[in-house]
């Protein structure tokens, strides 16, 4: 693989990383809507399953944020390598 091919492959990797970010953004949006619906429906219930479900759904936003930041870090590292090989 010559340098140009390497660059092309890395850019393609960056595109996939950016796509992962976009898809994770959709997950975050859906998670927010789902939390609204869950709270609307399950408000005030002390049922163990309800409490567990709400706890998971509330934590999703943070999980997704961390994944998105990792994808951003990956792109940053890949771009640094692109710059290094000229």
């Amino acid at each position, binding site marked *: 693989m010559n340098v140009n091919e390497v660059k092309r492959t890395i850019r393609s*990797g960056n595109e*996939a*990383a950016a796509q992962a970010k976009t898809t*994770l953004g*959709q997950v975050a949006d859906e998670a927010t809507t*789902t939390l609204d*619906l869950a709270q609307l*429906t399950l408000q005030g219930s002390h049922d163990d399953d309800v409490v567990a*479900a709400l706890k998971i759904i509330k934590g999703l936003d943070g999980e997704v944020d961390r994944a998105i930041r990792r994808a951003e870090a*990956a792109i940053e590292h890949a771009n640094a390598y692109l710059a290094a090989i000229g």
Partner: protein
Amino acid sequence: MSAVVAQLLELRERLAATAVIAMRAKADAEHGHDQYAEAARGTTHPRLQQAMADMRIVGDKSARIARLLNKARDHVTAYLNRIAPGAVRDGGSHAGAMPTGEQLLADAERRANAKASVGSFLRRAVKNVENIQDSTKTATELGEMGVKILRSPSGPKGAQSTSTTTPSSVTTVSRPKMDVPEAAAQIAVLGIMTAVAIHKTSQVLGRTIARWRNR
């Protein structure tokens, strides 16, 4: 209670559909990782190694998010089975990482309904009514359920989608044969429309009477 059941079924569906999206993010991340790995052949440059490691973590985290969503769905299913036995048709089983046909279908359907309004929620509610398959339920009860959905102050949150994808045209398959749950659903919709009509008529009447009194 039936309104709560319909909303819980909707919640289950959304959790499953979101898990499918999370699995797509995992696939994206894996593809990115593989591309970086291919470019990294013959080099041990730390930045490229770091990019690969990060992308692997993105994939793992996406899979974890999908698992969490399925776990939340299991809890909702367990709760539903306790408060309304028989409301969940498939028993809430899912095949772990691989999206089931039902999940994919729900995902596609939700995309088609991205521009959803009360109409879409009703369509889903109708489907949920079919799932309930409670033949003892009267049309009046079903109508009341619909009215509750319409009257809920902030409206069903499930009816709104924040998806950024362009919605394709909503395809409603017309079925020539009408089965019993469908007929019940039709009556339910009719009940809602009647209730809305009565409500509007009483409003108009109220205003007319008020005007007449003020004369």
